[in-house]
């Protein structure tokens, strides 16, 4: 039973990380109707910059904090160079151009940092030593840092919700998403608004990368796997819906962890052990996609549809 609790925590933690990446993607997609495949490399850059600055400054947290403005600046630069020319184009052009950005940034990363996984400092606790862990199950330490991630993953969505629903800037963003011409007519520079939203999304991705760097390997291509799951998250959640993305991310995280933990054992009741292990492993990695297909069958627009930037 306590094992199940640990697996649920694992799923929760994976889910909130997915949300942090998917939130930026969903925001940009929902508000600006822009498919940004390069979101994954922004996540990757966040992780690389945090890792490097962490080693440089000697503190993981300082590195992660400094990665935020860098991610923001990179977002602004990319928006100015590439993305602002894509807003009025169709989705195919956007996919092609942003795919090009992936290739360029990944190769640039490789040229700068090399292709081996990067060294990342262990996040330190308040007292300065490594954060250690909490013994939930005898013999297994649950790293405190992962609990911190879960905490951050609950605070950030609340902040986002507040920002979008309760502030003037959020109101403009929502209005800009549904009635750009009207907002423009009222004297708001819609272009600048989009730039800000895009850079904010990039910063969220960079933040997620920085947070993920002690957990996931910081290596070229790290953004690609996450990006695919993020698209699953925003499709299940309903495009553009922050609330949908949050619930879908938790769903995907929990499904993935618990599926991997339980399926091979469940199948053992039906198949012989070696077949059960391999089929179970294969099925567990498909589970997320099977669930996505099922949800889309009953709710083609996702769980929380319509709410562009809601």
């Amino acid at each position, binding site marked *: 039973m306590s094992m199940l609790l640990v697996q649920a925590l*694992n799923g929760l933690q994976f889910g909130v990380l997915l949300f942090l990446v998917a939130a930026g993607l969903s925001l940009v997609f929902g508000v600006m109707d822009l498919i940004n495949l390069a979101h994954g490399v922004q996540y990757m850059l966040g992780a690389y910059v945090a890792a490097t600055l962490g080693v440089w400054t000697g503190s993981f947290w300082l590195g992660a904090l400094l990665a935020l403005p860098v991610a923001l600046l990179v977002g602004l630069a990319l928006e100015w160079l590439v993305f602002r020319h894509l807003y009025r184009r169709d989705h195919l052009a956007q996919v092609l151009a942003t795919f090009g950005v992936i290739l360029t940034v990944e190769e640039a990363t490789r040229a700068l940092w090399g292709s*081996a996984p990067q060294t990342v400092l262990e996040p330190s606790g308040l007292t300065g030593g490594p954060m250690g862990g909490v013994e939930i199950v005898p013999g297994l*330490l649950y*790293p405190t840092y992962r609990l911190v991630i879960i905490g951050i993953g609950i605070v950030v969505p609340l902040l986002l919700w507040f920002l979008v629903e309760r502030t003037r800037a959020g109101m403009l963003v929502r209005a800009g998403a549904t009635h750009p011409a009207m907002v423009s007519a009222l004297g708001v520079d819609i272009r600048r608004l989009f730039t800000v939203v895009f850079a904010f999304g990039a910063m969220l991705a960079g933040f997620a990368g920085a947070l993920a760097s002690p957990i996931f390997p910081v290596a070229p291509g790290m953004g690609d796997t*996450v990006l695919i799951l993020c698209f699953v998250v925003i499709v299940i959640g309903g495009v553009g819906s922050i609330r949908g993305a949050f619930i879908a991310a938790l769903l995907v995280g929990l499904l993935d962890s618990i599926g*991997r933990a339980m399926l091979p054992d469940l199948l053992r009741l039906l198949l012989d052990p070696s077949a059960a292990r391999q089929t179970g*492993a294969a099925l567990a990695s498909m589970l997320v996609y099977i669930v996505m297909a099922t949800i889309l069958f009953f709710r083609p627009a996702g769980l929380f549809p319509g709410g562009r930037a809601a």
Partner: protein
Amino acid sequence: MNRRSFLTTTASAATVAAAGGFAFAPSIARAQNQAVKVAFVGTLSGPGAALGTHLRDGWLAGVTRLNNQLGGRAVETLVIDDELKPDVAVSKVRAALERDKVDFVVGVVFSNMLQAIVRPVTESNTFLITANAGPSTLAGKGCSPFLFSSAYQNDQPHATMGQAAQDLGYKRVFILVPNYQAGKDAVAGFRSRYKGEVVDEVYVPLSQLDFSTEVTKIAAAKPDAIFTFMPGALGVNLVRQYRQAGLANIPFLSTFTVDESTLPAQGESALDFYTAATWAPNFDNPHSRRFVQEFEAAYGYVPSNFAAHAYDAAHMLDAAIRRTKGDVADKAALRTALEAGDFPSVRGALRLGPNHFPIQDFWLCKVAKRADGKFQTETVRKVLSADADGYAASCKMG
């Protein structure tokens, strides 16, 4: 014989006749002055690029040590990135063979890349030295007179770890591998020599991001040791999480998971974790010490087995070309010279089996921190002596 080839043959015969006997010798002499051309093939982009870099730098370090000469002839290396795509590997290697007329092909990190290029290379009667990949087919039925290995057959490191687990007296072992062919081969290799109980075998997708589920399972199973094969970034992640979860008191037996290509990222987390290898940077012979010292001076990182095998490949070719007195056109003589296998290896004594794969010792190694703060694997003890792979018997060479 069709018309065109008939015409070409007569034309060249006429040229030779016109030029007379004396023209022949200078043309060979001219060939001897030309550089020996070697195509280095490795995965230098994408997720597997770190290994390709080690392999390439090992080869270049070997060539540098030999004063940019192989067997007394200048050498020119053509570096080819196979991009981990079989079609790309084949077309680039074909271009090297046909356009650049390379004399040798060396390198190759991944077995599927080797399998893609082996026929185009050997069918053009060009020698192929694999410095890493060693799939069972090419060591057995599919062996070729033109294929040599300076590394090992893929099963051997896994079997070494199985034997080590057996020797260390572990009764219950938990196995964790990626769900693809090489992962399944690793399990088979390990189990070929480990006779104890396997508590659980867990297969994870190659795109696995997070091992928390598996780490929890290991904690629940409480095995005597775990055996894993998690190459590249997968291994970096597993090792860190294993340590963070406080499981490091359960011995971590692995192959291709903790080595000099991943240790910079794993650091302290990998300390005292085990791996199986043919060589480690702490090998105590002058040749090996000089290799490590020169390699680190030139490339700024600690060489791995990949680098060592590629370094040896350079010496292997050097010794063979020296034996044929610089002649790389006489394939039969060159083959005999390569088969002699009497080159100085960083691994010490080494000979080649009938399938052209090395017969060598395998070691249990452990991650250690050096005085200068860098991490490397160090030998614990010899597990297998003069081990030949199990496929040599089915190799029938022409």
